[in-house]
């Protein structure tokens, strides 16, 4: 019972420090709106996003953001789009974060394994991401799961590197050395002493990776390599971009602007959250800026 209360006050204190940063709170609020949009899409969306109505309708009472070139309701597409973007972003960042953490722990703890893993990490980091994703996506059938796999494969190396360098510095701390001297098994030390200490860093990393994945997914969809059966913001922009008179008529205002702004706001909210978390985690930065 007492342990529970301590945890709660700890959380309370963390939240107090976090909410000192206004942009962190703003980021959370924006993210929450998008999460609600994604989870309750079927209830919020006025239409089925795949249903065909009159093409190229301007905004009106029936279609608040008009319809696209084949007659789908743009507002509904937009609401369902939140699902794809957020699902891929969270799924990939968590899975690649998990892989990265395990490899980071191992490579920070065992020198030889570390050397080997870091060479692979270096290789991954030297290869530009989007061209590689485009190449793989062009050969594979585009589907959400294929995208998830590609992004995960490309996402773990940075996490591994960050976790490893943290483990390297933690390893020399007194309590870790003491535990090792007392003959505690490596797995115990890693889980009990090191993992809790890299956790804050990992959370920041997950948020940053999520924003990278959203950017990568929308870029790929924009290039026409997304899952054609799943509505995503990048895909809406792809069709808008391919529409011949997108710039000269007023169509862009309701077809191009909304999905673009959705991407911007999602990435922005993740960046704000990441920034606030980083100051929370890294005491050296704390109190430097009062945003």
């Amino acid at each position, binding site marked *: 019972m007492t342990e529970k209360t301590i945890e709660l006050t700890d959380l309370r204190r963390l939240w107090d420090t976090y909410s000192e940063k206004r*942009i962190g709170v703003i980021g959370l609020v924006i993210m929450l709106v998008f999460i609600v949009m994604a989870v309750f899409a079927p209830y919020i969306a006025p239409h089925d996003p795949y249903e065909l109505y009159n093409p190229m309708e301007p905004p009106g009472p029936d279609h608040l953001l008009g319809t696209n070139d084949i007659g789908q309701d743009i507002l509904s597409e937009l609401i369902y789009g939140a699902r794809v973007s957020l699902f891929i972003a969270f799924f990939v960042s968590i899975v690649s974060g998990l892989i990265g953490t395990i490899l980071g722990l191992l490579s920070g703890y065992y020198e030889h394994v570390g050397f080997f893993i870091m*060479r692979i990490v*270096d*290789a991954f*980091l*030297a*290869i*530009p*991401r*989007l*061209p*590689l994703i*485009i*190449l*793989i996506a*062009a*050969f*594979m059938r585009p589907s959400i799961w294929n995208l998830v796999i590609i992004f995960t494969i490309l996402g773990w190396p940075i996490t591994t590197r960050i976790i490893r360098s943290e483990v390297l510095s933690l390893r020399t701390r007194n309590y870790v050395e003491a535990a090792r001297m007392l003959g505690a098994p490596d797995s115990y030390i890693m889980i009990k002493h090191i993992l809790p200490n890299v956790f804050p860093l990992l959370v920041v990393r997950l948020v940053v990776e999520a*924003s990278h994945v959203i*950017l*990568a997914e*929308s*870029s790929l969809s*924009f*290039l*026409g*390599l997304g899952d*054609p059966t799943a509505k995503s913001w990048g895909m809406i*922009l792809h069709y808008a*971009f391919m529409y011949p008179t*997108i*710039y*000269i008529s007023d169509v*862009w205002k309701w077809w*191009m602007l909304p999905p*673009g702004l959705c*991407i*911007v*706001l999602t*990435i*922005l909210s993740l*960046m*704000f959250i990441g*920034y606030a978390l980083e100051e929370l985690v890294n005491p*050296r*930065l704390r109190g*430097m*800026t*009062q*945003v």
Partner: protein
Amino acid sequence: MHQITKIAGYVTIILAVISFNFFLPRFMPGDPLSFLTGAPGMDMPIVLDEATRAKLLAYYGLDKPLLQQFADYMIKLMHGDLGWSTYYNAPVSSILAGRLKWTLLLIGTSTLLYIALGIVLGAISAWNRGGKSDVGLLLLLLSVGSFPPFFLGMLLIILFGVKLNLFPVFGAQSPFMAYSSPVEEAMDILHHLILPATTLVITHIGGVYLLMRNSMLNVIGEDYILTARAKGLAEWYILRKHAMKNALLPITTMIALRVGFMISGTILVETVFAYPGVGMLLFDAVMYRDYPLLQGAFLIITLVIIAANFVADMVYLRLDPRLRHD
């Protein structure tokens, strides 16, 4: 010692990329050439005439054993043979050669600009930490940094190209233009360069800025900055002479890595502005399912970036006196 491990690392990476490029089409599920011939199940079947088909088959050499294929592939690469483009019906290498200069021009100008601006703004921000200019810059650059390049490009086209009609919205040069002088040609090229380059600069400046700001915040707390103050040196002099280089050293490689990532933005920006570089070629190759072109473009882009990283690494080794070996 340092150099040798680095060089060995780069050679391995290059070999890995080349092998990956070789094996990817061959290890795809199903018939290795189904993607070329438009077998059932493809979204967009491609119809090839007999001559092109024969050229393709000869290039891939699928009837030979795998090892032989790999050896042939490597030999062809050495000779600059990247295969035959199905869409342009021309050698991939010659198409790439014509496009590379535009990409290099676009990347070169925007890279110089955003790195220089990011470094200067990051340093200013850190030096005035907590002040108005710091907070303002931080918010501004975080915000503009969250615009995907393709979206920002489209917005700039609408604002500066269509509404204000200040800049051309596509291409690298005006079509069918007979230039009266090289200066006129250069001005035309510059005119076309401004919007795409601006897009790239805006979307990439935030990363460098944040790196520099954090690095500079670390440097400001160092003892040698205090020593410099104790000598009576002026603030701007300390910033320029004592802090800049120390703040830049630990982030050089990270900035160089970012230049590598920048190619992603370039692909998107070239596509949006129909800028005839390698990035737009990649988009075309995807659109027309021109796989040899896609692979050739991928290989060139990757090699150029790895080369850039290599140069950055070597420069770094020379910059830091602690790593320099006599």
